[in-house]
């Protein structure tokens, strides 16, 4: 009982939201991408490159915001490679994603050593601090949880309704769904599925980039090899868990974020669950969901299938 109350702590919930944020960026990107019919298992590598570029940007320009912008752009550029290979060339999307992961892992590790030098790899750069919203932050319980956060946390959670409206209430959303479900039907009414897929892939990379840059500039304040630590894959789990819906994805990210926060928290309050099981949690949960729901609704019908103009 005592353990349970130990968890009911504003700090725990605040940590949950903070840890969910980079995941949420990447998950929203993944949703956009997959709904247009492109699967991107290279989110991990994309986030790494963005985390690195964010650090470089913040250091050389001196502003975390501009650094963040650099990270977003880097994410978009990395995704552009994926778009070119898997959309323009029509190559296997999984293999392309694997290559992106290798590239991201290698290039980020290579460049941090070359640019900052071996000794100063972990140079702390201008970064984001917590922002307290006036008045709201003083609310009991809710204040510290919701209104004493990074500015980017609000951006991430605001993107959820924005993406929802785009997907379900605009003609763009119809075009994206058509490109992911039946690209030939889209093409028959004058939509170019390739362009839709390109746009979604690049935007998805930008969102994953935001997640990566948030990790380096908002949480770590420097760059470290492999710092994304599987979050790109957890994002893939989250979007399946959330049934390709931004709101569902957000809920998944919060659950996974809570599990993540519990690792630290659990140790503090003496929780008996080994931390490896906490790390395993998102994957096991997603597997369980997949098994319960079955393969019936596995997302867009044309996902992973290259579209060729005839």
């Amino acid at each position, binding site marked *: 009982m005592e353990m349970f109350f130990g968890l009911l702590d504003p700090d725990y919930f605040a940590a949950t939201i903070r840890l969910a944020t980079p995941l949420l960026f990447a998950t929203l990107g993944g949703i956009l991408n997959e709904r247009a019919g492109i699967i991107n298992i290279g989110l991990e590598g994309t986030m790494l490159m963005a985390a690195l570029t964010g650090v470089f940007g913040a250091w050389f320009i001196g502003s975390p915001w501009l650094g963040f912008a650099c990270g977003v752009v880097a994410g978009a550029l990395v995704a552009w490679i994926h778009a070119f290979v898997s959309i323009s060339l029509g190559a296997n999307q999984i293999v392309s994603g694997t290559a992106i992961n290798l590239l991201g892992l290698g290039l980020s590790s290579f460049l941090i050593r070359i640019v900052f030098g071996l000794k100063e790899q972990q140079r702390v750069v201008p970064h984001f601090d917590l922002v307290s919203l006036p008045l709201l932050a003083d609310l009991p319980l809710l204040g510290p949880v919701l209104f004493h956060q990074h500015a980017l946390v609000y951006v991430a959670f605001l993107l959820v309704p924005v993406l929802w409206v785009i997907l379900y209430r*605009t*003609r763009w959303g*119809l075009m994206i769904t*058509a490109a992911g479900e*039946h690209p030939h039907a*889209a093409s*028959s*009414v004058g939509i170019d599925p390739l362009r839709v897929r390109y746009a979604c892939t690049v935007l998805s990379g930008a969102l994953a980039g935001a997640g990566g840059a948030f990790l380096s500039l908002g949480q770590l304040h420097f760059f470290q090899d492999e710092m994304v630590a599987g979050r790109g894959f957890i994002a893939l789990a989250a979007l399946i868990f959330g049934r390709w819906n931004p709101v569902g994805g957000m809920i998944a990210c919060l659950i996974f974020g809570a599990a993540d926060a519990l690792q630290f928290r659990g140790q503090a309050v003496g929780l008996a669950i080994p931390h490896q099981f906490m790390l395993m949690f998102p994957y096991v949960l997603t597997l369980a969901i997949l098994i319960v729901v079955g393969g019936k609704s596995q997302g867009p019908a044309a996902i992973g299938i290259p579209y060729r103009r005839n």
Partner: protein
Amino acid sequence: MPLLRMERITKTFPGVVANDRVDFAVDRGEIHALLGENGSGKTTLMNALYGLHRPDSGRMLLDGEEVGFTSPIDAIAAGIGMVHQHFMLVPPLTVVENIVLGLKTANARGSPLLDLRTAAARIRELAAAHGLDIDTDAQVWQLPVGAQQRVEILKALYRDADLLILDEPTAVLAPSEVEHLIGVLRSLAASGKAIIFISHKLNEVMEVADRISVLRGGRLAGTVAAAETDPSELARLMVGRDIVPPRRRSSRPGAPVLWIEDLSVRDDRGLRAVDGVGFSLFEGEILGIAGVDGNGQKELTEAIAGVRAVEDGRLDLPGLAPSRGARFRDIGHVTEDRHQTGLLMSFRLWENLALKSSGRPPFGSPFWLRVGAMRDATVRAIETFSIKAPGPDIPASVLSGGNQQKLVLARELGLGPKLLLAAQPTRGLDVGATEYVHRRLLAARDDGMAILLVSTELDEILALSDRILVMYEGRAMGQVNADEVTRETIGLMMSGIASREAATGSAS
């Protein structure tokens, strides 16, 4: 002045002249049928009109003005609508979402936000005007095929199409739905729309069209008024000569090979596709299963072949070994779609030929493929079945459609099966290949094989079958002797109008 005039349209693909100086015109208020066999150039001509590709030469005039479309967007903007044979609908989207898909005017104020309520109101208006009954909020995947077709028509009308192209629109419809469609088309024509109706079915075209243009081998064989022609003239135009059914000896049926009683089978969606069908098939005879596509023939053959579960009833294969593996070797199966279910396109010819009998003598043991024997057998098959192929090591995809079908036939007949299921064995083949396949089937029959022939082509059924079973909505409408039946009788049974008694009654 006609709404559309196409003049001397020529289009060549590598090795083929798909359209050769074709002239074609449609008036407002007219239903103009485009008739021709598979590969006669109908689709190529319509793709040129719809902007899917550009003709090499010739010109197109719409309302007297020359047009040249580079994409369907141009065609749509010019008031041309196309109902594709394979519907271009996005299954998880609703009817109204499908209809406004891709339109910039989905919202009057020009924002990307959708105004589906206004759109739905207009759709209901259009639907009411032409008898196109539809639920605008239903998701498309939930709708039956006929309703999906109505969505396609509404999609074109919503985009203010003046000219509507329907590509083989009846291929997927039940006869009652065909009636309904024809009513809709008449209503649209009466309101001033021009309609191009693509088909290869003579009777249907006679019924629906005002004028009929016949294509043969990429050329226009003639344009005639429906009122001034008859099916035999159309058939002559289409084929270039009177259809002579191959001569065949009468059959000498032997022991039973297939015995079916009260058989029921479900389709992929879980609906009952075969509903209490019963018949038997004997050595040395061809039983033809006639019927419009989608009346349970596919599920019936798949159940016999052992790739689809039997829901209820009796399916006996007397004389066939009971084991699963043996069943696939004792039953030859020329499947409906050689691309999806017949061949391994990127595999070599010998791999395709030996697929069903690998691991058994003479092609090896369960642990060893005798590649030499497989290649030799393929070399022999290439000769016996006059397959045009340089050797056994090329991939199947390199062969032409006719030669691919011969390869399938070589494999299935090569096993010496007791029972051959031949589903649409000549679909998409040219006249020469079709004749070849027919001769092979008759020869196999004469050698004592039992053949179940499934075809939507009435002529093929009549030319080959000893007995004919007509299927309609999963049921057997009746069984008739091929020698004692007329086209009309079978046509009626295929439309579900007459049971066996009524059919023979009206025939006599």
